[in-house]
């Protein structure tokens, strides 16, 4: 194949031009690679986000159905005071739901309140001594009126407040599954210091309902509630320092014997956040939907996903725009070189060389340039990708933050244990999480192969566009003026 040799001789003899072409092609391919890298990093980050952020499905009493029932009862019987009865979730139901695929773990929440006995509650300047109906989650046993909020959980680490790091264990440990059927308690730092409580101490509470027994609790850990969680809580609530965490079994004991084996709500962690709605559909078949409802919370995942989708979409646009622009630029360069090389083409044609072989020569020359350019871009693209990637993520996170904070529902809309879902504070926290997500840019063999593919396509297309000039060239007109 003689045109290979000609291509090589040309590229080698015209070193200056070749180097220039390599530089131009490298620049084009560097941007293509940067786009490819950001795209694959965004894909990776999204799947990472699935694992990190997670999504939940919460099983709780069906408030809406209960509310309707209450209304109909009010109109039929002339009961003086309408009362809404919420059926506590049966743990046996929860176990059934937990067996669905894509559910990795579940956590039980049962909240109530008790009255302080051996200690003093922390009082806020505004709400001192006020009755504390409606905790942070707004969901509580209707009869409880104590001054200390008891959040019975499976494990503190599984609660929203702790998993999103708004609350932190400062001393001792949190409640774990091993604390089931114990009187262990985790108290807030302010309450602990006010009452000189430390890990290992005991405190006494008085039940707010039933026979109002005094119960001794053992402090196993001290936690710090963040300031945001207080702003998060509804205005009527008590000071957040008066919230204690216990095992849900203890909370049920406080509520009364008929609450054994129940919960206010059960939150299921969905291993693949993309599957949330299918989990919800499957779960609904297992429960009595007139009494219970399943609600989903994948807001964090959606936030991160939206931000990563933004990045991915942008990266895609970069790849295609640069590829198209690069093709046009290279085509123009080739068209110009063809004009400059028309005598050479004329001599080739006068020797009887086939036109396609002349085009093949130009293609081979360009390919040699592109191979070197791919290598250069492979080194440089990582740098460009890193720069662009970090900028894009922070940018998209900011835009996501501004858009999502507008739609953020007021705290405590859905009964989902403590904290409530999607309050303004937690949305900001999610956006922060997205910002923290590093776009880790590494050039993989796949990226290089993709880049090579783009290089090849760009070369091929640009030569095809420019080859019209070669096909039209008349040797007579070139050589005989």
């Amino acid at each position: 194949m003689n045109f290979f040799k000609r291509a090589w001789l040309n590229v080698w003899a015209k070193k200056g031009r070749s180097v220039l072409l390599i530089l131009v092609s490298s620049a084009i391919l560097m941007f293509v690679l940067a786009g490819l890298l950001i795209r694959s990093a965004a894909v990776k980050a999204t799947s990472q986000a699935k694992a990190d952020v997670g999504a939940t499905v919460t099983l709780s009493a069906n408030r809406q159905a209960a509310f309707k029932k209450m209304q109909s009862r009010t109109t039929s019987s002339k009961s003086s005071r309408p009362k809404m009865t919420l059926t506590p979730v049966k743990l046996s139901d929860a176990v059934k739901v937990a067996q669905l695929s894509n559910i990795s773990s579940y956590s039980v929440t049962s909240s109530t309140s008790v009255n302080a006995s051996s200690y003093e509650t922390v009082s806020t300047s505004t709400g001192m001594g006020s009755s504390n109906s409606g905790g942070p989650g707004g969901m509580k046993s209707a009869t409880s009126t104590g001054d200390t909020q008891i959040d019975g959980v499976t494990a503190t680490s599984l609660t929203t407040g702790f998993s999103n790091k708004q609350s932190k264990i400062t001393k001792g440990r949190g409640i774990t599954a091993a604390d089931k059927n114990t009187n262990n308690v985790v108290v807030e730092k302010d309450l602990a210091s006010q009452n000189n409580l430390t890990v290992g101490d005991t405190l006494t509470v008085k039940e707010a309902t039933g026979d109002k027994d005094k119960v001794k609790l053992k402090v196993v850990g001290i936690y710090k509630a963040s300031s945001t969680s207080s702003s998060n809580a509804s205005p009527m609530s008590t000071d957040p320092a008066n919230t204690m965490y216990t095992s849900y079994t203890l909370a049920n004991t406080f509520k009364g014997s008929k609450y054994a084996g129940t919960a206010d709500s059960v939150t299921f962690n969905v291993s693949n956040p993309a599957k949330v709605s299918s989990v919800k559909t499957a779960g609904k078949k297992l429960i009595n939907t007139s009494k219970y409802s399943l609600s989903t919370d994948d807001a964090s995942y959606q936030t991160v996903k939206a931000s990563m989708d933004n990045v991915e979409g942008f990266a895609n646009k970069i790849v295609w725009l640069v590829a198209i622009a690069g093709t046009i630029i290279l085509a123009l360069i080739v068209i110009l070189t063809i004009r400059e090389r028309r005598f050479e083409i004329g001599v080739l044609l006068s020797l009887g060389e086939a036109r396609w072989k002349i085009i093949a020569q130009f293609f081979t020359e360009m390919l040699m340039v592109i191979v070197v350019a791919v290598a250069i871009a492979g080194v440089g693209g990582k740098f460009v990708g890193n720069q662009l990637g970090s900028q894009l993520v922070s940018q998209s996170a900011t835009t996501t933050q501004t858009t999502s904070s507008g739609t953020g529902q007021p705290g405590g809309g859905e009964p989902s244990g403590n904290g409530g879902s999607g309050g303004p504070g937690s949305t900001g926290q999610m956006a922060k999480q997205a910002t923290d997500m590093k776009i880790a840019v590494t050039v993989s063999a796949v990226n290089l192969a993709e880049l090579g593919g783009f290089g090849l396509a760009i070369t091929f297309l640009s030569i095809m566009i420019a080859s019209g000039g070669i096909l039209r060239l008349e040797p007579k007109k070139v050589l005989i003026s």
Partner: protein
Amino acid sequence: MLKTEGLGYWYQDKDQPLFQGIDLEFDAGQSYAILGHSGSGKTTFLSLIAGLDQPKEGDIKLNERSLKQIGLTNFRRHDVSIVFQAYNLFTYMSPLNNLLTAMAITDAAHAGDKAYARQVLSDLGISTDLAERNVQHLSGGQQQRVAIARTMCCDAKLVVADEPTGNLDEDNTKEVIQQFQKIAHEQGKCVIIVTHEPDVASQCDHQFRLENKQFVELA
């Protein structure tokens, strides 16, 4: 060997052809000079018999086969070798590679034979040293000799040249014409040279003058 039958050509106006009804015959082993004043259509005629363009009228036949039948690209590759006044060579190659490239494209018998190409070049006074340098470093006379060497290397039996000595001094002109004579008489090829130098023309075996749209053979 090469015959024109009722050959005619015009650019824009059919009523004002450059030449018309031309019946000529060119034989192998002979050299032909075509004279004529500027603009008479010598180059145009040459481009037709070199297979660079198609006649408007009549036919050109190589060994009784029409060029149309052979195909112009095929004809250029195997049957004709062209030497121009300028721009004959690949500027990014050495003389040696110019020869090797032409031999490869035209499927010459000596294709790929470096020693043969070197020998042909040195016979024409292009030293081994010069043969490896870029052609752009060669003088005009040397470049034209490389173009002639290329013609010698290739197997085409028809050699056409358009004012091959136009850019050369007297000594180089003499040398180049001698080489063309060699090609005709020693290689047995048919050589057709367009020139407007009577001295050059007189050295060829036959002379034609393009006048009033007709070719007239000079005694």
